[in-house]
């Protein structure tokens, strides 16, 4: 199949970026989107041009490294799929694809399609952990976890931290990511003791990083490659309200 690509090219953080057109001829429909970019890059290198920089790692849809916005949709048109697991058969011969980086002030472009997502790391550092002694694992049944809670926490824990929620949000809000990480730990008995401190610090770190605010439009859940529900955002809203009021009234 033959496609036309309009790819965002930007030398570095400070450089001005622009869309550059490329002809992608003879693309195998069985290729993944990133394999298609690999082919284009080989051709660019052979022609003496700079290859298109893009993030990738496992290419199995579980690491959260890949990130690209295709025709305005982070990770492309296929629902519940990362861009590395998106295959060219989902496009039609002759399609024009606009490929841009995830756009947010908190995700500055490093080069072309590569963005710096370390703002997410700072949010995790603020509260995305449980303070427990490590060592030999305790007997599993000493701490019963209701099945419902285990399932709910697992749904949240499936977040791979790719940042598509931020990229899709009309306001570049990181609420779905923060809500999934906080919801995962807050639901489990190991994470409950630090629940209030966790939500307060993680939201503060999120605000500090310059993400926008949630306006309850749920574009985040729609693009999430792990289909994480906006219900976690409601849970975070509830938990943050409780934690803040406790802090306001009881210090």
């Amino acid at each position, binding site marked *: 199949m033959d496609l036309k690509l309009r790819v965002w090219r930007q030398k570095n953080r400070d450089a001005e970026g622009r869309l550059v057109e490329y002809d992608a001829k003879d693309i195998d429909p069985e290729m993944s989107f990133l394999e298609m970019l690999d082919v284009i890059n080989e051709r660019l290198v052979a022609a003496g041009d700079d290859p298109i920089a893009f993030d990738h790692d496992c290419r199995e849809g579980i690491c959260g490294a890949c990130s690209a916005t295709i025709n305005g949709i982070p990770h492309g048109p296929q629902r519940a799929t990362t861009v590395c697991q998106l295959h060219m058969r989902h496009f039609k011969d002759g399609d024009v694809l606009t490929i841009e980086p995830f756009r947010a002030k908190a995700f500055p472009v490093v080069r072309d399609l590569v963005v710096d997502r370390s703002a997410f790391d700072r949010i995790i550092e603020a509260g995305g952990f449980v303070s427990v002694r490590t060592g030999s694992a305790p007997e599993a049944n000493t701490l019963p976890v209701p099945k419902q809670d285990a399932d709910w926490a697992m749904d949240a824990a499936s977040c791979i931290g790719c940042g598509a929620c931020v990229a899709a949000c009309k*306001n570049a809000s990181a609420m779905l990511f923060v809500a999934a990480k906080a919801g995962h730990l807050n639901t489990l008995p190991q994470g409950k003791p630090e629940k209030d401190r966790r939500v307060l610090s993680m939201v503060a770190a999120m605000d500090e990083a310059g993400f926008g605010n949630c306006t309850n439009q749920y574009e985040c859940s729609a693009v999430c490659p792990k289909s994480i529900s906006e*219900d976690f955002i409601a849970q975070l809203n509830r938990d943050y309200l409780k934690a803040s009021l406790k802090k306001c009234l009881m210090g």
Partner: protein
Amino acid sequence: MQNFARLFRSSLGKKYVMAVSGLILLLFVIGHLVGNLQIFAHPDVINAYAHFLQNLGPGLWAVRLILLITLVAHVWAAVELTLENKRARPETYRQDDTIQASYASRTMRISGFIVLAFLIFHLAHYTLQVVDTEYQEMYTTLADGTEVHDVHAMMVKGFQSVWISLFYLVGVGLLSWHLRHGFASMFQSIGLRNATIAQTLEKTAIGFAIIYFLGNALIPIAVLAGWVS
């Protein structure tokens, strides 16, 4: 106190202000519509009701003050959140797309802004009565002999103007449009929405917006059609 300030400076704190002020304003506009629908009863009914409200004394001013503070809080939160949201994405997508965000949710700023302008006109028109000062001279006598402001005649006179009626239809139309997103959104903002009630909430919001619009639209339409005179 410092903790309260921190809460209202946070992104989520402003969302709570938005949701709670929105709820108060929503309850007010429902009450306001129910009151106005009395125009379809005998003129004495709405005139007596208006007379009762105007004579609440300090109670009336307390309610007005609460509504004003609520409105200011709602607009303040909207402006703050909008500015922060604009700053959060300085470089926009060259090609943008939307998967599921409703059109109403994406036009909250413009619908809210026009509704605010409509509200100022509405207050000048029927509360301050400066758009047509003749309203200030309209009095009538109730069955029990009390002399009251003739609100019924004032409403009929106001809506007999096609332009004013059209402006009201646009105003309440946009307010209904605004409430279509706001109604469901406030439940999410304070953490009371989940997958079980999401569909019901969405349908209720749409149903409410339609009923609210029709209820309001009925008044100028009835006056223009001569059903109320």
